């Protein structure tokens, strides 16, 4: 059997870690509706917190395609939860590039993993995209929905087409920070226990 082809065991790993990734980000997302700063802070919070499960995931990846499939499933889930399809190409592209970067280091190089997770984190930015592109109608619907005008204004000063590139950069950096924290946690808790 071809050793480089994904096998049942890998698909199960993908399923499990994608489920964890999604649950963790959902929890953060629900916290976010409390404050516009947290909404804008998704790009920081989600990559950092999901860094822990993702680093454990990276430690189990040996073959090409696993990160790509994860990003495809994330794109599908984003669609189901009402983020639309605009972010999907970015999400999948981020996953594919992250996969390629990690592959170039043979899934063992720590430096490559670090950058790769930064790129993968860009899916968070992709989920913002509809918010930026349809800012006016979205703002209107939030106001009509009874949200406080100051909440809406703060949200839209932080997330606008102008600040969008900045958010992308922040997201990428937080991804790498998340990778460092995640790696430290994995080393502290999992390597000692011999799970990795």
């Amino acid at each position, binding site marked *: 059997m071809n050793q480089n082809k994904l096998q*049942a065991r890998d698909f199960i790993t993908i399923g499990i870690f994608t489920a*964890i990734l999604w649950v963790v980000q959902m929890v953060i997302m629900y916290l976010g*509706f409390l404050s516009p700063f947290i909404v804008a802070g998704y790009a920081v919070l989600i990559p950092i917190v999901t860094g822990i499960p993702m680093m454990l995931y990276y430690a189990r990846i040996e073959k090409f395609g696993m990160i790509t499939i994860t990003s495809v499933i994330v794109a599908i889930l984003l*669609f189901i*939860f009402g*983020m*639309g399809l605009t972010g999907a190409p970015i999400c999948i592209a981020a996953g594919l590039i992250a996969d390629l970067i990690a592959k170039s280091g043979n899934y063992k190089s720590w430096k490559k993993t670090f950058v790769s997770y930064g790129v993968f984190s860009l899916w968070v930015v992709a989920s913002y995209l509809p918010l930026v592109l349809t800012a*006016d109608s979205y703002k209107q619907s939030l106001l009509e929905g009874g*949200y406080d005008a100051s909440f809406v204004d703060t949200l839209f000063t932080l997330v606008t087409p102008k600040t969008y590139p900045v958010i992308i950069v922040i997201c990428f950096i937080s991804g790498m920070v998340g990778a460092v924290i995640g790696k430290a946690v994995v080393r502290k808790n999992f390597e000692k226990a011999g799970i990795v």
Partner: protein
Amino acid sequence: MDEGKKRKEITGWLHLDPRSKLLILVLFSVVVMIDVVDGPAYIVRAIMTFVPVFLVCLEGKLHIGARFTVLFIAASVLQNYAQRHFGGALGMLVLFLCYMVTQFAPTMITVWYCISTTKINEFMAAMNRMHAPQGLSISIAVMMRFFPTLAEEYRSIRDAMKMRGIQFGGGKVTKMVAYRLIPLLFSSVNIGDELSAAAVTRGLGVPVKRTNICDIGFHACDFLIVSVMSILTIFYVWLSLQSGVKLL
């Protein structure tokens, strides 16, 4: 496992094809994507919300349907009231809670309906028929099955942490995250290994085409519900376009 047994016993009065469920889910995501808060479009949206509730009831889970209905109506009424009478921080909090319920609960109940009433082998059969890549369907199937397990594990961990006196609302945020996430990861990894062993034993991963004994197919009620949902979705999109919502 008890959960597994319960899952097998689901034989409602109406059992839809997994593919119709997927289609309903997709149509629903289109509806959730467009934010409408009042006018005729909102009424269409409310009607659409109750289609999955109705389906849940038909699958023999009356209590869940009833609970959702009460929650949804209470949230709508409260939201309406809060918009007019409340202000300040309290108003925001109430509005936020109501908004969450009215906006996300419909998706939640649809997802819950799809996951809890579809057996995994039925899902695999449906994905096979749609010629979806096997890798994707296995991954999604595992994920679907894993959400309830994750919830169960989380409950046990929370109870254990309660005994140690570690709860939400006290202590450092990092500790709160770490003490929950890491045990959860530990048990997930172990469950994953067990699952892999079980799957390989059953021949998942052999390089031949898998067969499936599940008898799935479209029946009259599938056509009825799918067409009702499609018409409602088109009507909804049309109405919101009329009222000037930009589509993307």
